[in-house]
């Protein structure tokens, strides 16, 4: 299969500019600079590139939302906050191929006449931030960033900005507030970032992987990229597989790869003769699937039909023998810990879910707790400023719907049949 991103990942030196250029790096930027700006955007639109940050919004369409009038400078923010449990693909790109991102963002900035880009990277990724810093310096030194890039007269300044430990700062408007030095509270929309974004300026926020696809699109053309994927989602995706499989890791696969194939062929199936119990397909926020539901293609539409989502394509494999109540409690801890706290339903709802799921797991559940959880989810979903409340409620609902008997049993027997452990 043709790969867009990972082709040279195995090469340790690919992260340095010389090696990167040895493989044709920055030629896409050179090509882009010779193209009319609209033609670049058109190529990305033809590529059918959908955002890889989780929401799957078509990149070309998003780029078109910038106001036509050029009186206010525009900003690009690269979302490198990767924090959705089960997701670890952007980190891989940044550590193995930082120049793919730098080149991609430079092309995007050129196409959109943006002179200032920030890479917002999660604070824990200290090493990756260092690698990016170095890559950015290399790019400056080689004339791919900075003033008068490749003699085109185009200037671009890039700043790597570190977060400081907050999953919510991956939500794009929280990213912007955090970048501005505020608490990471997501913003009310409208206005959308394309109108009022970072520092009040029109802003495009894109995920690391989304932008890293751009050089290939420019080199090979949008149509060819589109053809690598499926009808509604062009190109490849970095699918991350975690949990007790033979070969956990990041795999570049067609955007509509089959989930069973991912787990059993690509990742080699489960370890130690374990059996599959459940799969969270696209990061912890996406509704869980039972083992018998995984014959599904990873494209956005097929997943939606199953009531779940491709999300960040972070596949978490859950083996038989796992207590689903405990697994859900771990996730509920996470969302309660990460809620920014501004919207009532999310702040109180995530905390309440954590407590109720926690007491069920501890054998102290009450007969009406399941009903209570479902009702809380109902009161949270679609009622908040950002999608975190939904992100917490979706796993809760789906765990209850699909593994109801385990919850009932905890409540009935007043203890965990798995002995309160993984």
């Amino acid at each position, binding site marked *: 299969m043709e790969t867009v991103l990972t082709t040279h990942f195995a090469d340790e030196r690919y992260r340095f500019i010389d090696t990167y250029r040895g493989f044709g790096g920055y030629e896409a930027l050179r090509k882009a600079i010779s193209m009319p700006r609209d033609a670049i955007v058109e190529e990305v639109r033809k590529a059918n590139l959908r955002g890889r940050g989780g929401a799957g919004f078509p990149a070309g369409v998003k780029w078109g939302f910038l106001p036509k009038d050029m009186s206010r400078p525009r900003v690009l923010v690269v979302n490198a906050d990767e924090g959705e449990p089960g997701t670890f693909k952007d980190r891989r790109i940044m550590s193995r191929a930082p120049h793919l991102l730098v080149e991609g963002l430079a092309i995007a900035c050129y196409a959109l006449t943006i002179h200032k880009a920030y890479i917002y990277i999660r604070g824990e990724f200290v090493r990756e931030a260092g690698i990016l810093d170095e890559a950015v310096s290399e790019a400056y030194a080689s004339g791919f960033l900075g003033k008068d890039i490749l003699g085109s007269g185009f200037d671009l300044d890039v700043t790597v900005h570190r977060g400081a430990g907050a999953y919510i700062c991956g939500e794009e408007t929280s990213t912007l507030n955090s970048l501005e030095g505020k608490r990471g509270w997501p913003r009310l929309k409208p206005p959308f970032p394309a109108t009022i974004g970072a520092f009040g300026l029109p802003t495009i926020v894109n995920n690391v992987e989304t932008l890293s696809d751009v050089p290939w699109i420019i080199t090979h053309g949008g149509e060819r990229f589109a053809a690598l994927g499926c009808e509604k989602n062009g190109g490849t995706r970095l699918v991350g597989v975690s949990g007790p499989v033979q070969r956990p890791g990041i795999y570049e696969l067609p955007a509509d790869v089959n989930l069973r194939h991912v787990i059993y062929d690509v990742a080699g199936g489960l370890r130690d003769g374990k059996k599959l119990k459940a799969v969270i397909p696209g990061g912890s926020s996406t509704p869980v699937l039972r083992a018998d539901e995984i014959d599904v293609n990873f494209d956005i539409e097929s997943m939606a039909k199953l009531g779940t989502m491709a999300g960040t394509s972070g596949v978490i494999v859950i083996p038989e023998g796992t207590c689903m109540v405990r697994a859900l409690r771990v996730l509920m801890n996470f969302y309660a*810990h990460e809620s920014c*706290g*501004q*919207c*009532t339903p999310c*702040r*109180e709802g995530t905390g*309440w879910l954590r407590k109720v799921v926690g007491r069920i797991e501890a054998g102290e559940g009450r007969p009406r707790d399941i009903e209570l959880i479902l009702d809380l989810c109902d*009161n949270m979903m679609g009622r908040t400023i950002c999608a975190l409340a939904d992100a917490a409620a979706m796993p809760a609902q789906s765990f209850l719907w699909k593994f109801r008997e385990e919850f009932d049993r905890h409540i009935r027997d007043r203890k965990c049949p798995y002995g309160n452990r993984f």
Partner: protein
Amino acid sequence: MPSLTIDGKAVDVPVGTTIINAAEKIGIEIPRYCYHKHLSVAGNCRMCLVEVEKFPKLQTACSTVVTDGMVVRTDTEKVRKAVTGVLEFLLINHPIDCPICDQAGECELQNYYMKFGLHKSRFALEDKVRKKKVQDIGGQIVLDAERCILCSRCVRFLEEVTGTRELQFFRRGDHSEISVFPGRPLNNNYTGNLADICPVGALTSKDFRFKCRVWFLKAFPSVCTGCARGCNVEAFFKGDILYRYKPRVNEAVNRAWMCDFGRLEYKKANNARLLVPFVREDGREKMMSWGGLLPQVAYRLKDAVEREGPDAAAVIASPQSSNEELYLVRRIASDLLGTKNLAFTSRVPGDGFSDGFLIRGDKNPNSRGAQLLRIPGGPAFDELVVKIAAGKVRALLLFGDVLGDLTQEETAGLLSMVPFVAQAGTNEGPVSAVATAVLPIASVAERGGTFTNHAGRVQRFHAGFPPRGKAKDTIGFLTSLANRLGAGWAFDGEASVFRALAATEGPFAGMSYESIGSLGQEAKG
């Protein structure tokens, strides 16, 4: 102008109006916590969710701008479920200590959960998130962080109105807590407003704390007399005691705010009041009746004029007096006594602090009114003081409790040069300590009239209750005095005086109490 329907009622509103305000226009009150008309929209409490046709999700009425043809419903089952859901979420970590909460009675949490018939929380009380209880955070405010519903109004107020940012949210999720930084208490002159905007009992007034349950209080509209801004206030009282001022919204004057000094101005109506007429003879105070004292005052003024000419009498007017009062005072001085010795000063003891926001350097509510009514101020006052000091004034009628910025000693020294000083005042002070005759008059809560603020806006204040003790309404007192000086006036109350004044005084021409209304009207010139 977009037109839309809300719960089936049609309404037209200007472009840019949000649903919550469009609804208000037709009398539909959409529940809210974070929304406050005078602060930016935060949209975080999620109380104001409504159904909007064509939108699959409920929308927040506070942040959604209406579009033409929009169909909004605030009364559906879905909305009700969402709102009760939010209330329930708010209550799970709320202490529900209403019996000991000062906010009880005007608490938006209490109000809404009664309105939505929410009874008991499904949540075990024992594992509520605990936060700091009663905490003095400076200014006029006590904080109970446990009661906070994190609406962020206070944070926005301190960001957008005072710019001082003392209160912030710390931590996140359900551990988010409102607080000041240790050792950095509230440090601005508008802290009292925080208790007003806090929808629950998290920020309450130190001054009002435990003084009175709010449901025992009645209120009337008034105007703060603390400075020339003339902030519009609501005065709360029980019996003949004022308990507090709260700002009354007036976009042209004080928006929704007032300063901390003004907020405590109400105390003047309660404390150290002059409540009985008295004369001072050989250093001793002798109580008098109005009937006994008033003729004496009239006689002494007339006598001075008759014996030594009109300029042996003098009148010092007060910028604390209403337009109506000042008008009568001027006529008494000029028309009846015929003296040229009429003056006022805006100076008061103290530093005349002002800020670029509400607080004015002039600490009187009606200096502008005195000017517009052609009562000489500034140098005229200083000249009169010189005359008095030179012993040229034999009888003085003095309004107010202070004599400009003179100290107690200076006041005593100056007034000792006048054989007869009649003071019409409300409170004990340097003047009442030495005046020959003291005429206690009604406080601002006990009488009505208008003040003209620094910008020339004429604003009404009202009597909330009858004058305390033997204090008398000034209009009545001035009318009796004038009639004893031969005026033949038939004024009955401040309204009749204002009519007369509007008929003859240019700046007030064409004005009436009706046209002034509750929000005031600009005088001309």
